[in-house]
């Protein structure tokens, strides 16, 4: 614990101390200019990392937010007479608002469409800055005076310290944000948007908030940029800059504050690297060596594919050879960026800092922080009354896919506190029915009532919010998150702090509480010792149990288990039965889809049998097993001569 604090905080403090004292010892204005730019780009890249790293989306609008923030800050000084902090607040607000407005439609899209939307936005903002000449002076450029800070004029040195303070504040706020529910939600979104919605966390909301937050940092950086250069031109904020920013984030390392900082350093120094021939040759040769080394290493450990090893070597080789052939490297600036970026994206996807951080953690054996003791289960999952009133009612529910009638009119009632089995041959419509109930699909027709009230249709998120929680037949865990984080993400009723409080670091107490509660649920499924393990590294059985614990974290009235025993080894099936019994004792109503008839017989109070999208029988397990219709459906026989009395235990 102490070691962790020492290393991580220590490194931050040392870096800060060095950065803060350089201007006292070096009086070179050029160096000071570079440092100021470094702080500004640091803020900018931390903002970009929110979308590119954490949300995992290619964002091409960040340069535009820098520009918009810069113009907003400049104009609020010249037109409105704002002071330094006021102007910076305006630039942040512009980033936040425009970012939110753009995110609103754009984030409903995935991947390429999102990238296209952001690309259009940045082209549009360049157009506006160029053409709205009355306000921005268009292509001529806009001169800006640096405003005073609380009545004190800022010289270059003072302004640098202001930028550095801003960087520190952003750094701290970002750290608080990322270690809160927000940070978890960002990462979860990328792994499984479906599960994020199904846990009632709300994919869309978090995406929009994340994007708007990142953009507001872009705006803030823009404000500082404006007061640094005191002259703005629309063409400074175009696609070219955007590519350089992406280079910074990717090369530095995604999902890392240090990575963003390293990337910023690189961007600031790049022009110098290119203008000095010898330096450029050294760098490109080093790059080639690194590419060869990393590629060979990857091939030897079989962690990379041949292409991943060879392509960066070719790209860096082109850089070295090209460096000798061309006369002026600065003319080839873009090609050089492109080759470097290409090598990193293909060969070193974690970036330089991602690579280093992993190496250092292993070298110094830095342990993760300790966990609090688990909460009492009664607090986390209070016992619910099992009064056999209707919990869920389906009324003539239908869902068709083209010509296939997957669910063709199901009516059934699930009673409070019971375990209700849903069985039927493959393709009988069980999974579709559950997907309709939980909101993944909208029904073609029919009604779903939860405790007498109509359930929202076609929205996983809204259904989850009303108290219906589910697991998935094909696991939908957040693989990059730890087991504990998987449960914490879904935890309902713990996170109350608003975003500003989270940013200021006032959410630590509830974070501890959430950890304790999540541990209690992990204990319930027997995974308390696996809390820090990444979900993707758990055994298959443990992953299944983790999904159940996560679903319970939503504190559901109704829990839907979609084939929880599928693919489990025999001992694990017994563990599963125990877990379900324990959940049943807390009074949670359960719908259990299962193929193992022995599991169904042991657990279920009532069983509904589906076939061809219709209910063909309902009753206790024993009744259902003897129903000739059921036997026929299961064995698929039409010759009535030889109908066995009982269907087999396992179908």
């Amino acid at each position, binding site marked *: 614990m102490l070691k962790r604090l020492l290393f991580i905080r220590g490194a931050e403090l040392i870096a800060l101390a060095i950065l803060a004292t350089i201007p006292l010892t070096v009086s070179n204005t050029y160096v000071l200019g570079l440092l100021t730019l470094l702080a500004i780009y640091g803020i900018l890249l931390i903002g970009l990392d929110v979308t590119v790293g954490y949300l*995992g989306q*290619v964002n*091409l609008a960040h340069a535009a937010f820098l520009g918009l923030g810069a113009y907003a800050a400049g104009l609020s000084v010249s037109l409105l007479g704002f002071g330094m902090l006021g102007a910076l607040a305006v630039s942040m607000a512009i980033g936040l608002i425009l970012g939110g407005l*753009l995110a*609103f*439609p*754009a984030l*409903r*899209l995935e*991947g*390429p*469409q999102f*990238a*296209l*939307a952001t*690309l*259009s*936005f940045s*082209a*549009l903002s360049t*157009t*506006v800055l*160029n*053409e709205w000449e009355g306000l921005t002076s268009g292509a001529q450029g806009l001169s800006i005076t640096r405003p005073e800070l609380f009545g004190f004029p800022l010289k270059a040195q003072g302004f640098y310290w202001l930028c550095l303070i801003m960087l520190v504040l952003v750094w701290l706020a970002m750290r608080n944000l990322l270690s809160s529910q927000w940070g978890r939600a960002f990462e979860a979104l990328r792994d499984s948007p*479906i599960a994020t919605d199904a846990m009632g966390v709300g994919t869309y909301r978090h995406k929009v908030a994340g994007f708007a937050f990142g953009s507001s940092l872009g705006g803030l950086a823009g404000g500082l940029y404006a007061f640094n250069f005191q002259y703005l031109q629309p063409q400074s904020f175009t*696609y070219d800059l955007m*590519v350089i920013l*992406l280079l910074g984030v*990717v090369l530095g390392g995604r999902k890392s504050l240090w990575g963003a900082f390293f990337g910023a350093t690189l961007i600031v120094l790049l022009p110098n690297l290119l203008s000095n021939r010898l330096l450029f040759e050294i760098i490109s040769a080093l790059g080639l060596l690194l590419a060869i080394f990393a590629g060979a290493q990857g091939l030897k450990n079989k962690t990379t*594919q041949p*292409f*991943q090893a060879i*392509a960066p070597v070719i790209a860096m080789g082109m850089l070295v050879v090209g460096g000798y052939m*061309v006369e002026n490297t600065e*003319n*080839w*600036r*873009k*090609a*050089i*960026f*492109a*080759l470097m*970026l*290409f090598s990193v*994206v*293909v060969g070193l*996807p974690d970036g330089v800092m991602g690579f280093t951080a992993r190496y250092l953690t292993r070298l110094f054996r830095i342990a993760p922080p300790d966990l609090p003791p688990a909460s009492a289960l009664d607090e986390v999952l209070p016992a619910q009354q099992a009064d056999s009133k209707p919990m869920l009612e389906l009324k003539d529910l239908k869902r068709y*896919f083209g010509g296939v009638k997957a669910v063709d009119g199901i009516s059934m009632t699930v009673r409070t506190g019971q375990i209700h089995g849903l069985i039927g041959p493959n393709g009988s419509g069980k999974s579709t029915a559950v*997907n309709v109930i939980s909101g*993944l*699909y909208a029904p073609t027709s029919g009604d779903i009532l939860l405790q007498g009230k109509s359930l929202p249709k076609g929205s996983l998120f809204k259904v989850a919010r009303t108290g219906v929680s589910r697991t*998935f*037949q*094909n696991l*939908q865990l957040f693989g990059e998150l730890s087991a504990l984080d998987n449960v914490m993400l879904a935890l309902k009723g713990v996170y109350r702090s608003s975003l500003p409080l989270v940013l200021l670091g006032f959410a630590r107490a509830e974070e501890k509480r959430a950890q304790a509660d999540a541990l209690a649920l992990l204990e319930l499924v027997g995974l308390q010792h696996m809390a820090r393990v990444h979900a993707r590294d758990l055994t298959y059985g443990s992953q299944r149990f983790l999904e159940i614990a996560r679903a319970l974290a939503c504190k559901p009235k109704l829990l839907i288990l979609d084939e929880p025993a599928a693919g489990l080894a025999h001992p694990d099936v017994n563990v599963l039965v125990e877990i379900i019994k324990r959940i049943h004792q807390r009074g949670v109503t359960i719908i259990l889809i299962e193929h193992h008839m022995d599991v169904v017989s042991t657990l279920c109070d009532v069983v509904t049998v589906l076939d061809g999208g219709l209910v063909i029988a309902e009753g206790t397990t024993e009744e259902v097993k003897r129903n000739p219709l059921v036997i026929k459906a299961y064995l698929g026989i039409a010759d009535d001569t030889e109908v066995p009395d009982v269907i087999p235990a396992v179908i």
Partner: protein
Amino acid sequence: MNSTIIAQMVVSGALMGLVYALIAYGFQLTFATSKSINFGQGELVMLSAFFSLSLLNWGVPYWLMIPGGLLFGVVLGLVVERACVRLTLEQKSEGWILLTIIFGLLGFSAAENIWGRDDRPFPTPIPTEAMQFFGVSITPLEISVALGVLLVMGVIELFKRKTLLGKAFEAVSADRDAAELMGISARHTIMLSYGLSGLVAAMAGILISPITTVGPTMASALILKAFSVAVVAGLDSGFGVVLVGIFLGALESLTSFYLGSGWREAPGLILLIMALAVRPNGVFGKASIRKV
């Protein structure tokens, strides 16, 4: 008088819009097979145009230059697939977005240094004297652009519908795994789609160059509008791109007439963001079903 000017604007804008549609059609081709598109497609248009111009300068006759330029486009398309797309698709990541952007940047820089930063005229044997139709003047060159666009798209659509290879192409877009089981290699189909997409880009470059001249930045405005057309129509909309392309072309030429030429980019961009807000799958696109 005023209505004639508007008609003139609409017609010449619409002709331009057909070129956007052609490039957007190239996006659809690769999106169908691999759910990916080349963000550096504009550079493909530009590089092919430059290469074709060089062919002419080396004395290659005009009608031989066209297949040469198209072949160059195909090769570039295949290079993009190999270098930027294949690996990330296998990893099921969206790294191809970044990698194709990077490829575009490399192409841009190369063109700047090899062919220079200035715009150069692109000779054409097709006459450029305007003809009058009901007061609207159209040049044979413009007509040739429209015909060229429709010809290329028509031939590729015929290929998709009438040949078995084309049907295999559609099968891969419908269900990649099932297509593999039929012995259709998804990898080869994706290569084919990138090759065709490169061909389409080269065709767009050759068609548009005599009108706009050739330069490193010739495609940067063009490509933004092609993106708009592709997204507004829907990346799986087939001929929807033609309608949207014509509409957008006409709209922007009217915009630049009434608001000033600096604003001509705006309608496409606004349309794109609006279309995304209202119909994320495009006006002519189909909604997809989420699976678990």
